[in-house]
C-alpha cells in the first residue's frame, strides 16, 4: 500500500470529529439541546466529506500528486460513515426511536425524502466501493459512481430546505459544489492540467 502515513493521517483526522463532539455532548459543552447539534454537525460533516472527496480528482490533476487519489475511496467511505451517524442521531435524538413517526416524515416532508434518496445513493456507492464490485461491474462501475454528482445535488437541496432565514452558509457550500462539478466538464478539465504541467515542460525547453 502506498502512502501509509498519509492514509493513516486522513483516517485519524476524519475519525476524531465525531468522538470529539460526543465528548463535548458528554461534558455539556453543546448547550441545552445537544442531540439537535449533533444531528446538524454530522449532516454538515457528510456534505463536507462529499465535497472533499470530489476535490481529490481535480487536486490530483492540478498537482500531479497521486496521494490525492490514494485517499479518495477512504474519504468517500467517511462520507458514508458520517451519513450513517447523522441518520442514527436523527432517529434517536429527533424521532426518539418512534418508527411510526418516521413513516409519516418519509411521506410528508420533502426534505426528508430528498435526504433519504441521497442516503440510498451513498449506500449504493459504499457497498460497491470494493475491488470485487469494480471487477464485477466493469465499465458500469464508473457509470454507477457518477451517481455522486446527483447525490451532491440532493444533499444541497436537503440543506437548502432546512435553511430558515439566512442563505449565506448554504451559498458557500453550493458554490464550492458547483465549482467542483464545473471542473469536471470536459472542456474545463482539459484546461486544468495545462495550467501546471505546462510550466515545468516549458521550463525544460528554455
Amino acid at each position, binding site marked *: 500500500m502506498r502512502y501509509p502515513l498519509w492514509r493513516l493521517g486522513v483516517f485519524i483526522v476524519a475519525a476524531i470529529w465525531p468522538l470529539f463532539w460526543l465528548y463535548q455532548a458528554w461534558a455539556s459543552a453543546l448547550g441545552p*439541546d445537544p442531540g439537535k447539534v449533533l444531528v446538524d454537525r454530522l449532516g454538515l460533516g457528510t456534505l463536507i466529506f462529499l465535497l472533499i472527496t470530489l476535490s481529490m480528482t481535480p487536486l490530483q490533476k492540478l498537482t500531479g500528486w497521486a496521494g490525492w487519489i490514494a485517499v479518495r475511496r477512504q474519504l468517500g467511505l467517511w462520507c458514508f460513515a458520517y451519513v450513517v451517524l447523522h441518520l442514527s442521531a436523527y432517529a434517536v435524538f429527533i424521532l426518539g426511536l418512534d418508527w411510526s413517526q418516521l413513516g409519516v416524515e418519509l411521506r410528508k416532508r420533502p426534505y426528508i425524502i430528498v435526504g433519504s434518496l441521497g442516503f440510498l445513493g451513498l449506500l449504493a456507492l459504499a457497498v460497491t466501493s470494493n475491488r470485487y464490485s469494480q471487477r464485477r461491474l466493469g465499465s458500469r462501475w464508473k457509470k454507477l459512481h457518477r451517481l455522486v454528482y446527483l447525490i451532491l445535488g440532493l444533499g444541497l437541496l436537503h440543506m437548502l430546505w432546512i435553511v*430558515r*432565514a439566512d442563505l449565506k452558509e448554504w*451559498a458557500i457550500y453550493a458554490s464550492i459544489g458547483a465549482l467542483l462539478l464545473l471542473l469536471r466538464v470536459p472542456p474545463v478539465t482539459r484546461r486544468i492540467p495545462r495550467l501546471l504541467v505546462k510550466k515545468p515542460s516549458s521550463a525544460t525547453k528554455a
Partner: protein
Amino acid sequence: MLIKVPKSSDCKESDVTPESLYISRRSLLGGVIAGLAASALPRWASAEDAGRYPDVEPGKAPPWFAQKLPETKWQAVNVKDEAITPFKDATHYNNFYEFGADKGDPAANAGALKTEPWSVVVDGEVGKPGRYALEDFMKPYQLEERIYRLRCVEAWSMVIPWIGFPISELLKQVEPTSKAKYIRFETLQDPKSMPGQRSGFALIDWPYVEGLRLDEAMHPLAIMAVGMYGRELPNQNGAPLRLVVPWKYGFKSIKSIVRISLVEQQPKTTWQSIAANEYGFYANVNPTVDHPRWTQARERRLPSGLFSPNVRETQMFNGYADEVASLYTGLDLRKNY
C-alpha cells in the same frame, strides 16, 4: 372588557416523565436555596431579586428598572409541576436573527446592542401618539412576574420567569380609536449593532414585524416584558422591551421593540412574508397542525440531555387553552394556523 384569569393557568397534565421529575427536584432544591438566600437578605437588597433563581448573571439594570423591581408582584402567574429552565440555557440558546442564525449567536453578538437611551414610537389609530423615552413609557406600569411556558415553532420549549405588564394596561394608556383592529410591533433596525441585518443573504426583510388581533392583545396573559429571572432582560432575550404571548409560537413574541402601532388592517408579519405556507398570522401552538417540515405534536423541553431526552407532548395553546380558546371560537385553526 375584562377577562378573568383563573388561577389554574397552570398545566394540568400531571403525567410527568421521570426525567422532568428529576429536574424539578433540582429546581426545588434551587428554590429552597434561593429562598434561604432571600430571607437572609434585607428587603431592599436588589441582589435578592437576582438571587431568586440559581446562577443568574447579574446585569446592569437601568435606574427606572431598579426603581420598579422591588414593587414587583412575584409569581403572579406560575406553572405547576414544571421546572424553570436554567438561566444559562434561556440566555444562550436563542433565536434572534438580527444577531445571527445560530442559537449561540445572539449571546455572542448582542453585547453591541445599545439599550440606553431607548425610545418607543406609538402611532396609528391611537388617541395619544408620540415618541416616548423608555423610562417615561414605563412609568404607569406595575411589574409582575409571569412564569410561562415558551414553545418555539422549531419544536423545543422552555419555562421562563418573565417580568412585565399586561398589554391591556398599555392600551389603556394609548387610547386606541374605534378604527383600531390590530396591534403591530416593530424591532429595532440597526445594521451597525446587528450583524444579521448586514448579511446580504438574509431572507428577512428588516425590520422584524409582528402583530396581534386587538382582542388577543387585550388578553390578560399577553404581556410586554422588560425582565426575566428577577433582573432586566439580557440583550439576547430582546432587551429592553419585548412581547410575550405564551399560547403562541415563540416567533410571535417580538424582541427589542421600537414601534407600536394600532392599525385597521391585519399587519403583514415577517415570517408570513418569508413563507406564508409555514408561518401564519395566528401561530397558535397547536399539536394537531404540523409545520410543513416537521411535526408539532411533540416538543423537546430544554435542557434535553443526550441520553436522557426530555421529549413531551405539545399541549393545545401551549397548555393555556382554558384561558384563550374562547378567542378563537368559530375560527378554523387548520386554515388560520
